[in-house]
């Protein structure tokens, strides 16, 4: 029954994302604007571009994730669908997981799929592509989880987006450091295992704690 409620919520989120077509393409447009503008700004030298490629792709993924956070829970609060989360058999924490999963599907998966292409455009060595995708797979869920907590905390404030960014940025700095570290190590033919291990640990920490904290924060805002 819990799975049925969660899948209903994910299916509806995806349907709404398709219906809002343009908004859902934003992460990809964002990624490619960054990738195309960077060589124009710093010059087209392959060595320089290859050195900054992991950071650029990761910053694009991070900002794409942040873009959609403002609307993660707010429309549901305003139209009354959020309060229905506390009625019935499905614990709100599970519904938070479902909502964050659809946020990840919409904002991160397109970026992960197109990241190898973007990396090639920046001359990232082909050996590092696998680690780049792996770092995104491990790291972007953390962005969604941490962002979800911040979105829930700022739900009660009018125009919470500035506060939201201030809350999220310090918390995702470790993700950015370890993820770009992993890709740079792989590009230099070094082992990326330690970095990826740290990312995995951060992901486990976030998955364990964030749904509980987020549902508590949402409840405070509903009351």
């Amino acid at each position, binding site marked *: 029954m819990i799975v049925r*409620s969660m899948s209903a919520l994910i299916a*509806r989120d995806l349907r709404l994302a398709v219906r809002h077509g343009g908004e859902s393409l934003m992460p990809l447009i964002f990624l490619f604007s960054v990738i195309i503008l960077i060589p124009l700004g710093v010059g087209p030298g392959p060595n320089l571009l290859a050195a900054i490629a992991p950071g650029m792709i990761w910053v694009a993924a991070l900002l794409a994730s942040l873009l959609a956070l403002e609307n993660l829970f707010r429309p549901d609060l305003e139209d*009354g*669908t959020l*309060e*229905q989360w506390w*009625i*019935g058999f499905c614990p709100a924490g599970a519904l938070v997981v479902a909502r964050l999963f659809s946020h990840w599907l919409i904002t991160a998966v397109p970026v992960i799929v197109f990241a190898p292409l973007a990396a090639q455009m920046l001359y990232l060595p082909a050996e590092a592509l696998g680690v780049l995708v792996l770092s995104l797979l491990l790291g972007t869920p953390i962005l969604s989880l941490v962002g979800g907590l911040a979105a829930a905390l700022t739900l009660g404030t009018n125009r919470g987006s500035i506060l939201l960014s201030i809350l999220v940025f310090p918390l995702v700095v470790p993700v950015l450091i370890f993820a770009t570290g992993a890709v740079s190590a792989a590009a230099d033919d070094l082992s990326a295992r330690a970095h990826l291990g740290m990312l995995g640990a951060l992901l486990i920490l976030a998955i364990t704690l964030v749904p509980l904290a987020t549902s508590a924060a949402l409840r405070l805002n*509903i009351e």
Partner: protein
Amino acid sequence: MSPMLETRQASFARSGESVFAPVDLTLAAGEALIVLGPNGCGKTTLLRMLAGILRPWEGEVVRHCQPAFLGHLPAFKGDLSCRENLAFQRRFHGGEGLDENRALARVGLAGLGLRPARTLSAGQKRRLGLAGLLVAPRSLWLLDEPYASLDDAGCELVDQLLTEHLAGGGAVALSAHQRKPMIEIDLARLELTPPGGAA
């Protein structure tokens, strides 16, 4: 008869001030309760607390079954069609009630299944909310101002649905301030009073 809902000295407080005097009530199958009181006396707050959206400040609320809550907010997505909204409700709340088209026909919205919910009028939105009660049946209904924005035919529809629900072994708690239900079944009345019992 076993109760579906019980409260024991339940009250709710905002910023440390209680909204209404503690409430003791029990609601069993086939029973209906109407919550009365002037604007701002906490009718909505009480119903939200009974539904489990708000946690009681003091005392306790015990629910022996899953409630359905129909509030001021539509709880629908304006960009989805009426039918998609109802299909979501059915899956989300795990209901096996009427199918979407029959529920829409029952509340007088036949033929509007493909219309985006945001294009409905205020009264039609209320009717869509009632259809939501039919696609995902729950034995306990908590209705906040179910007669608001409805025309005469809509109010009669609410009365009919209430009668059928109570006859089928359901229970209802509702708030109202202008029109009261005109149904054959006895309504228990709960007058909300400000804390301290001044009124």
